[in-house]
């Protein structure tokens, strides 16, 4: 589908919002295990060393990073900044660029 970059950023913001709603279950589960007892904290550490779990955590963190970047763009635009067509295209490019960099850094940190 050929859509302007702004449309992709907007659709992906929606998709990441829905994804995060489910992803929060993973984070709350991790919070539960991290606080329940020293043993469960240790087994969470153990669990987080498996590549599959790392991948799941990375996916949730990536969703959070992207949704937050696009969300901040919304907030900036709510203040009337970058509301023109050119401004929005530039904003969308910034959102994508920052997200890619931060998601890669998060990946490095998780692995």
């Amino acid at each position, binding site marked *: 589908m050929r859509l302007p970059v702004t449309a992709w950023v907007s659709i992906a913001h*929606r998709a990441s*919002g*829905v994804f995060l*709603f489910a992803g*929060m*279950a993973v984070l*709350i589960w991790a*919070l*539960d295990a*991290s*606080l*329940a*007892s*020293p043993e469960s*904290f*240790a087994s969470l550490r153990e669990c987080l060393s498996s590549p599959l779990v790392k991948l799941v955590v990375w996916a949730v963190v990536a969703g*959070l990073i992207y949704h*937050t970047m696009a*969300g*901040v763009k*919304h*907030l900036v635009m*709510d203040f009337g900044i970058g509301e023109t067509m050119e401004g929005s295209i530039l904003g969308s490019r910034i959102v994508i660029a920052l997200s890619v960099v931060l998601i890669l850094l998060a990946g490095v*940190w998780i692995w």
Partner: protein
Amino acid sequence: MVTAVTNLGRSGLYDWLMQRVTAVILLAYFLYVGCVLLGGVDYPAWKELHAQTWMRVFSLLALLSLGAHAWVGLWAIFTDYLTERLMGTTGNVLRLAAQAVCALIMFTYIVWGIQILWGY
């Protein structure tokens, strides 16, 4: 037909504002927790942090914000795609069913979260 009965604040403007306020709270919370995790934590330090009243208040605030934020956000999505206009009566049934499921999940998150924050 536009029914303003399942949106959070019964008003689009109120919902819009809630979406912004909760977004900022969530942003602050994830930034803070992210920084703590980046600094590295062991069990005693992590436990100690979450035993503080201000941290519990902050966490609960974030959790409740998540509830409001997700409700407003998902409401916008469901009322865009699961509608009478797009699929007839099925749309209404699907939309209400989807909202009921999300409400149940959100309620579970909140009660589960409270139990984690105050239970251990």
